[in-house]
């Protein structure tokens, strides 16, 4: 290697380091906050790696009854909203792609542009009228606003690129459209299903604005629960940071493990929920 090439390599690694460090340092600091006793969190200059790790912060958060309830709530809301969106959205994406009904995508665009709060005003009244407030049903239904457009949007993209020849051959052999969808189109589009599923789960899990209005004491999801901890426990940073890390850890893990799928999905539709 010539000196110039070596210089280029060093420069490149320096640039990579500078670019990635805001993300890495932030999450390391988050972990540091969550593993320190109050003495260390209040120290100046700040302590990065404490002498004694406060694993107790995590134990406290996990041991509280409520946190488990909220965790289960989040699982139910995100799980149901994602499964329903897949059941409804995957066939819809297939139908729209095959009918080449590109104009219908405008509705999805509107859903993408609309602030989440605007759905809340009419749906809040509707849920009140139906007597659903106080259960998880309103949150599951309103999370569909996030998950259904993501799934439809991504699946349209995938079904448009899958080859038609196989499907046409199956139709000529006498298969129904449903059989073609189930046994020919769906298996080919499996990578797309993974992308749609992962993004729907993440954006539903992260959603905050719907819960802050619709959730009662017993029906909070984790982001709302963490927000409420801020207002009540302003000063105990350790447990707070631990709770925040527990809430977002599944998402971070998924991001690093499935970064290929996530990048594919985000650049295809550039979707984001809420």
């Amino acid at each position, binding site marked *: 290697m010539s000196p110039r090439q070596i210089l280029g390599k060093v420069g490149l690694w320096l640039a990579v380091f500078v*670019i990635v460090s805001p993300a890495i340092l932030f999450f390391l600091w988050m972990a540091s906050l969550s593993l320190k006793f109050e003495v260390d969190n209040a120290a100046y200059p700040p302590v990065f790696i404490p002498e004694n790790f406060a694993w107790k912060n995590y134990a406290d958060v996990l041991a509280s009854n409520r946190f488990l309830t909220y965790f289960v709530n989040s699982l139910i809301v995100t799980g149901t909203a994602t499964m329903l969106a897949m059941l409804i959205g995957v066939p819809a994406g297939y139908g729209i792609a095959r009918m080449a009904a590109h104009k219908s995508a405008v509705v999805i665009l509107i859903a993408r542009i609309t602030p989440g709060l605007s759905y809340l005003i*009419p749906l809040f009244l509707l849920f009140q009228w139906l007597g659903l407030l106080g259960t998880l049903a309103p949150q599951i239904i309103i999370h569909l606003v996030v998950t259904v457009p993501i799934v439809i949007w991504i699946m349209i993209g995938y079904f448009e690129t899958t080859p038609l020849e196989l499907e046409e051959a199956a139709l000529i052999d006498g298969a129904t459209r449903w059989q073609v969808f189930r046994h020919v189109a769906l298996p080919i589009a499996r990578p797309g299903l993974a992308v749609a599923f992962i993004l729907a789960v993440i954006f539903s899990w992260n959603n*905050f604005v719907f819960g802050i209005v619709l959730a009662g004491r017993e029906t909070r999801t984790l*982001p709302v629960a963490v927000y409420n901890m801020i207002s009540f426990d302003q000063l105990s940073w350790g447990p707070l940071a631990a709770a*925040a890390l527990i809430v977002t850890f599944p998402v971070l893990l998924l991001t690093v493990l499935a970064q290929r799928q996530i990048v594919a999905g985000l650049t295809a539709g550039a979707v984001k929920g809420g």
Partner: protein
Amino acid sequence: MSVTTQAASRAAQTEAAPERELRPPSYWPFVVPALVVVLAIIIFPWLFTIWMSLSEWKVGSPTTFVGLANYLRLPNDPRFVEAVGHTIVYTALSVLLPLIFGTLAAVVFHQKFPARGFLRGVFIMPMMATPVAIALVWTMMFHPQLGVLNYLLSLVGLPPQLWVFNPGTVIPSLVLVETWQWTPLVMLIVLGGLAAIPIEPYESAEIDGANFWQMFRYITLPLITPFLFIAGMIRMIDAVKSFDIIFAITQGGPGSASETINLYLYSVAFVYYDLGYGSAIAVVFFILIVILAAVLLYLRQRTAWTEIGGGA
């Protein structure tokens, strides 16, 4: 400039995708369930919101039709006017800064280096992480006495700041969080643009003795302009309606110094339960977003034309 022309016309072609005429009705059953759901949770709320915006509609009192009265209240509502100003400043900064940093990051991620995929995964973590969770950590970092940011400032010899606790610095501080969070999305979109650039113009530029900066300015930048517009538009839509970060860190405070339209909408609808007025704000807010998006689209078409004109 011929490459630019080609890229521009290619972009124009993909935009006007030819529509197939054949529409076999047998695919309808696939779409019907989604259609019902979309009508119920997206279209119905919109129509209902428009109707509500024409009424005096407060929780616990009878509803009366008031025509456009809610809309006429808006220009005379100082808090709304102030919120529009905050939204414009917040959005402008939250589009511009991620565009700059995201483009630089994309240029770096376009190079080949070991563990690139993994590092890209790490780089996009801020935008995927739960917003409330990261807002909570930023709140701790902004703390004037115990926060790590003031310690970092002291290391480089700068005076401590009040960050989100000072009306003068609250919006820039929130923009810092928003930039940290959403630079990765711009990076991903621009990275997609860079991947589509052919290698030939760089080869001929290298023969002609162009340096890195010249190649970036005269080859890369014109070719990724369409992608910068897409990124800018998405960023604009998201920044205008940003809620989680602002709400969790400042709730629009101190006072109302960081209250954007979306936060004011929340207060009107779900703190004061003035649902009619809240609906009017929601409608105006939506129209504002659509207009901004349309202006950006128009600008994008204009630049495509000037690039073609410049090549001729």
